[in-house]
């Protein structure tokens, strides 16, 4: 199996076309196996804890605007993944326009989110410090607003999304759009590297999206998902999962 797709062009030069889409199946199968293993582990071996009640006082976890951001982003990422892999898996849809429009949506919401997170939100709450790394290994340590896993997922997603956006914009500049005509490609090899990066980042994004969705629907975590819809978690849920010294909700 190859990792990178090459092709020898008529000038005899080996040009990188992009990531090998065989890896898509590797990623999909690997993610599936790992998640299935986790599910089985949780179902069979893990200590069953009582689920904290969702009744009682409600603690605000996400502003409406942040929830909207999350879901727009989620939607655009899913659309991007779907339209991006459609031609690879042989799904015959007119994907490209949807893909770049979704890409633009994603880009705008990400920019919005970055600005908002830096200036108006508790940016520190998401920072991943050295102390956070003790958290998974010590049951006594509870996180602040965001758990180690949540922070990890956030930053992984941040890196991947920025990577797909950055490479995606470069690729976007190479197609015809309502605003410009594509230029002549001066260097096919460089373009190929951007396709490779875009593809690689996509594979990562697919894997992390799968993990994210999996955890989002796990019974012990689903209240977070609910909070992403409704904005609140219960006080019981908060106390069970968070250190109130570190997270002081309004």
């Amino acid at each position: 199996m190859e990792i990178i797709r090459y092709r020898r062009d008529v000038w005899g030069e080996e040009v990188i076309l992009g990531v090998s889409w065989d890896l898509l199946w590797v990623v999909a199968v690997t993610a599936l196996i790992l998640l299935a293993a986790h599910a089985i582990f949780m179902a069979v071996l893990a200590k069953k804890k009582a689920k904290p009640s969702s009744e009682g006082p409600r603690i605000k976890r996400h502003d409406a605007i942040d929830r909207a951001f999350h879901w727009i982003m989620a939607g655009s990422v899913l659309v991007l993944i779907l339209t991006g892999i459609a031609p690879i898996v042989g799904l015959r849809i007119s994907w490209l326009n949807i893909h770049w429009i979704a890409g633009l949506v994603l880009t705008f919401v990400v920019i919005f989110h970055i600005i908002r997170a830096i200036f108006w939100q508790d940016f520190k709450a998401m920072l991943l410090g050295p102390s956070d790394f003790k958290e998974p290994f010590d049951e006594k340590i509870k996180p602040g607003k965001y758990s180690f896993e949540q922070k990890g997922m956030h930053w992984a997603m941040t890196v991947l999304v920025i990577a797909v956006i950055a490479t995606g914009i470069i690729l976007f500049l190479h197609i015809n759009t309502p605003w410009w005509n594509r230029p002549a490609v001066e260097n096919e090899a460089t373009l190929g590297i951007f396709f490779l990066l875009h593809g690689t980042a996509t594979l990562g994004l697919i894997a992390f999206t799968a993990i994210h969705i999996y955890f989002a629907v796990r019974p012990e975590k689903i209240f977070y998902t609910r909070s992403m819809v409704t904005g609140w978690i219960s006080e019981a849920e908060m106390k069970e999962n968070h250190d109130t010294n570190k997270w002081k909700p309004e």
Partner: protein
Amino acid sequence: MNPKLTRRRFIKGVIASGAAAASTSLWYSVSGQNRPAGSVERLLSINVNGQVRRVDVSPQETLAHTLRYKLGLTGTKLGCNRGECGSCTVLADDVNIYACSTLTHEVKNKAVLTVEGLRAADGTLHPVQAAFIEELSPQCGFCTSGQIMSAVALLNTNPRPTREEARQALSGNLCRCGAYDHYLNGVMRASGQLS
């Protein structure tokens, strides 16, 4: 202009491992190795100019190649080897085709007629041949065999074509010398319409 001044490596070579496998089996596959089961037999009997000839034909071999390289019938010319000129025109079951764009295996059950097979048993020229001489139809002659074969195919089905029908029928034969008018005169003469 976008001069690319970088030194770049050029390797005319194996595009993909699959292609490499295909081409390595090239010549020594004559002995029959590397042939997937169920594919065609190499040893063929083909009917050319009324004679059944036994030939060893590789699966991808074109009829023009077999005629010229294996059977010594060099009257069939290769002008382009791409179906773009008509110099290789032969008849397969009386239908004019481009021998360069036909696999020999495709015509194994057909009667192939080339320019060498047109003379009568007593050596008399075919009427098209005689008429082409009379009209001095060929110039350089490289396309002539093909022109003749298309004319023969036409007259087999339409013994008295109009000049327009003749040029339609011969239109798959390019003449770089531009002797079209003269070939048409030849067809008209061969069909007894010019004297």
